[in-house]
């Protein structure tokens, strides 16, 4: 997945008297920045929070890049760091009650593909409400279920890749996905009933 860059940046070369970010980090950001942003949105962050989340992830990557020893694929390692950081970020926001359950995201950059642009305003707002409900249900799940469901259902990863990212057995992934779905169904019903 790592692309070759025709003009590799000089590592640590100062620009305007300031040290530049590590060259490896720059290419990581180019290759994975948008993907991490997508993951942030799928973890339930809204667009502006997702941008903060991406920043946080790459700061963490910068601090930890020297601990990457190459036993895992770089993308797997980055996924691990990103997933943990973003889920922590989301949990903190939920805890701070900055996320109002059922609030419709009205930010102009809160565009979401799943909303049919051809739908009328009523349909769009009900889709937004439903989306918020699903997001809240996902937030109610224990971390171990939420992470596998995000990786499987939204990122579309295989059990094998999820197992690698989480550092767990494939059978565990299978079982958590199964239990996670059951639990998500329960939480959705509870929210629908106003519990």
């Amino acid at each position, binding site marked *: 997945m790592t692309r070759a860059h025709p003009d590799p940046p000089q590592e640590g070369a100062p620009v305007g008297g300031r040290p530049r970010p590590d060259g490896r980090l720059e290419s990581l950001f180019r290759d994975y920045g948008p993907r991490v*942003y997508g993951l942030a949105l799928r973890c339930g962050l809204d667009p502006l929070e997702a941008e903060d989340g991406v920043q946080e992830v790459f700061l963490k990557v910068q601090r930890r890049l020297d601990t990457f020893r190459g036993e895992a694929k770089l993308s797997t390692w980055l996924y691990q760091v990103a997933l943990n950081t973003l889920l922590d970020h989301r949990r903190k926001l939920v805890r701070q009650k900055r996320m109002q359950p059922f609030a419709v995201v009205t930010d102009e950059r809160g565009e979401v593909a799943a909303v049919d642009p051809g739908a009328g305003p009523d349909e769009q707002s009900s889709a937004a409400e439903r989306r918020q409900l699903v997001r809240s249900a996902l937030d109610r799940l224990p971390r171990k279920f939420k992470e596998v469901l995000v990786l*499987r259902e939204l990122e579309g990863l295989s059990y094998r890749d999820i197992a690698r990212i989480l550092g767990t057995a494939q059978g565990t992934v299978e079982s958590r*996905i199964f239990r996670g779905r059951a639990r998500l*169904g329960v939480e959705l019903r509870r929210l629908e009933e106003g519990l």
Partner: protein
Amino acid sequence: MHACHTWARRVGAWFDDEVSELESVEVRAHLMECPGCRAAVAQWRSLHGELQLLQPAAASAEAVARMSFRFEEGLAGEVHELSRGLRSWTLAAALMLAVGLGLLVVGQRTLPRDVAANDQRDIDRAVREILQRPAPAAPAPTDQRE
């Protein structure tokens, strides 16, 4: 109605396209005769559809530009912070060492000998670890394998 206990997980793996062709034939044969498992599959399908509501649009060019800018600015700042941080850590380590040695002198009178000795080893180790941290602006080369 629930998926039957013995088949549930296999049906789940089948739903995710994570079984062999042979298993797939078996699961499909089971589904033909088991309304519980069929109901479970229908529920997973509906959940999958609901979850796709959270599927975001691709990042706008504006968002990507903004993130790149913050990346450049933020990380360059971070490099500064780290080197400043490292200098203050070195100072803090020297202070810790001084305080630690002071405590050790007191500790030899008030604490059992082994406790005092452990404290000293911990302090030594912490100080060594801090002093051995590499300068953040000159990272070691790391293999970028995929």
